[in-house]
């Protein structure tokens, strides 16, 4: 007998892995619907970091004594885990940074300053997080390059048909988010890459929202850089990743300079260490790297496809429930083209007030411009409230959100 197994999550078991979820807030069970801003951490991740500090805390790549060996090995194992997780050819292509923001700034500075010149163009999209927009503004100013913008349509999809018009021989880089942190839109990175390659442009993908939520394979996507953050994928804060093609990374000058990134230092000149160390100046976030490695193991064991499928189901359910609330405006594309992120506004109540009422209801949602001010302008909303889901989110939490919104309507009637 053959059977097709639909990927299913054992939510109750998963929730038991997250100590923070077992609490009440303002008399209600905590409904944490802000994983897009930062995810919660399973006990195994917290314990892995605790173990490092209690048993083998030492600096890495320096000592020959046992503790330092152990710490170095644990950190480098974490690097290999991350490499496998995103399909990188080599662990040397994994550069540990603080977060997505630092990863993108690394590329903007190290690659941008040495590869961009007057007249060159950088193509970004109108839905970028500030961290994939502002570094390019600064580097464009510094090099004389110009920015172009891929527009979005009314439901928050990239206008792909504009691509051929926007790309030219002058386009040196396309910087695009794989999933919008406001609209939830999942962008067709592969199709964009195909077009970008035709004009010889490199492609940088902001994976802050994609890597935590579905399987991302850098070789399959055929991209050149991928940036993401540990804290959004069950790992700790303070650790992020830049993946880059080895040839490109090798040709790039360093970003930050100092210890660890050098091969030989003279008073006037120095030479650089091999990858990835060339881009990791100073003592790294060791515990955090170990924690991220553990988070990657955790996510892999649950299964990225199962996580994505469960989030699609929840999003479908949530969109249905929310659509039933009178006066609620929903932003973003239909469920087939989005992940578990839903931005909304309730009548003319300010999203901060919505979020404050929901908080009294035990529901944690984000309110604000979500670091996407240009996008907010396009939708003519100074801010939105945003609920987002992850592997531990339940249908009951969505129901709690809906009843909190009903309460909100009462208060601001």
């Amino acid at each position, binding site marked *: 007998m053959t059977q097709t197994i639909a990927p299913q999550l054992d939510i109750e078991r998963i929730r038991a892995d997250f100590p923070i979820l077992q609490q009440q807030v303002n008399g209600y069970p905590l409904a944490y619907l802000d994983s897009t801003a930062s995810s919660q951490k399973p006990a195994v991740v917290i314990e892995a970091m605790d173990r490092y500090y209690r048993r083998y805390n030492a600096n890495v790549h320096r000592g020959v004594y046992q503790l330092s060996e152990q710490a170095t090995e644990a950190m480098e194992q974490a690097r290999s885990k991350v490499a496998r997780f995103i399909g990188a050819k080599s662990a040397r292509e994994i550069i540990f940074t603080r977060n997505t923001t630092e990863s993108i700034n690394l590329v903007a500075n190290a690659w941008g300053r040495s590869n961009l010149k007057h007249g060159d163009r950088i193509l970004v999209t109108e839905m970028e997080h500030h961290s994939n927009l502002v570094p390019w503004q600064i580097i464009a100013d510094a090099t004389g390059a110009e920015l172009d913008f891929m527009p979005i349509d009314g439901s928050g999809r990239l206008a792909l048909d504009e691509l051929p018009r926007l790309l030219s021989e002058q386009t040196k880089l396309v910087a695009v988010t794989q999933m919008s942190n406001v609209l939830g839109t999942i962008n067709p990175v592969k199709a964009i890459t195909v077009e970008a390659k035709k004009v010889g442009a490199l492609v940088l993908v902001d994976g802050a929202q994609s890597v935590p939520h579905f399987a991302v394979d850098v070789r399959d996507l055929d991209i050149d850089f991928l940036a993401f953050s540990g804290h959004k994928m069950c790992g700790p804060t303070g650790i992020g990743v830049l993946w880059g093609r080895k040839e490109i990374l090798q040709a790039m000058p360093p970003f930050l300079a100092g210890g660890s990134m050098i091969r030989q230092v003279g008073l006037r000149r120095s030479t650089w260490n091999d990858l990835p160390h060339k881009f990791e100046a100073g003592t790294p976030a060791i515990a955090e790297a170990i924690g991220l490695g553990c988070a990657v193991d955790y996510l892999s064991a649950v299964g990225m496809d199962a996580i994505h499928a469960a989030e699609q189901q929840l999003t479908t359910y949530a969109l249905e429930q929310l659509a039933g609330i009178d006066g609620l405006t929903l932003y973003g594309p239909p469920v087939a083209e989005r992940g578990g992120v839903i931005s909304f506004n309730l009548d003319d*109540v*300010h*999203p*901060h*007030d919505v979020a*404050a*009422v929901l908080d*009294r*209801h035990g529901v944690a949602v984000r*309110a*604000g*411009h979500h670091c996407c*001010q240009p996008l*907010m302008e396009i939708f003519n909303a*100074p*801010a939105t409230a945003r609920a987002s889901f992850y592997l531990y989110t339940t249908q009951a939490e969505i129901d709690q959100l809906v009843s909190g919104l009903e*309460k909100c309507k009462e*208060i*601001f009637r």
Partner: protein
Amino acid sequence: MDDFYQQNILDHSKHPRNSGRLGQPTVSREELNPLCGDKLHVDLLIEDEVVTDVRFTGRGCAISQAAASMLTEEIKGKSVAEVRAIGKDAVLELLGIPVGYTRLKCALLGLKAIKAGVYGLTDEELDDDELS
């Protein structure tokens, strides 16, 4: 819940006092709260070192709008020196609710605009530390 969105806060935010613009303000000031996109424009009419009229327009959350509305009532008729002396605690007292760290910026946006406006009369800059 009821302790937070008290009736007077809802009332001030829905029906802001001194709303609008002045024809010939002595000084105007616009402030933004980048956290939530709140925006406030304040016009002050100052005669003989006294705030004789004030108007504001803005968009934002109930807390920022209510606090600004309450403040405009508070400062009308006060001397410039008195307005300069208004601090964070006075605004929190007007609101009468506990305001957490993240909402403090909302609550103080009106005060920021008013004080920065008044300071501007003598080419002084408002130091943000004054509001914390």
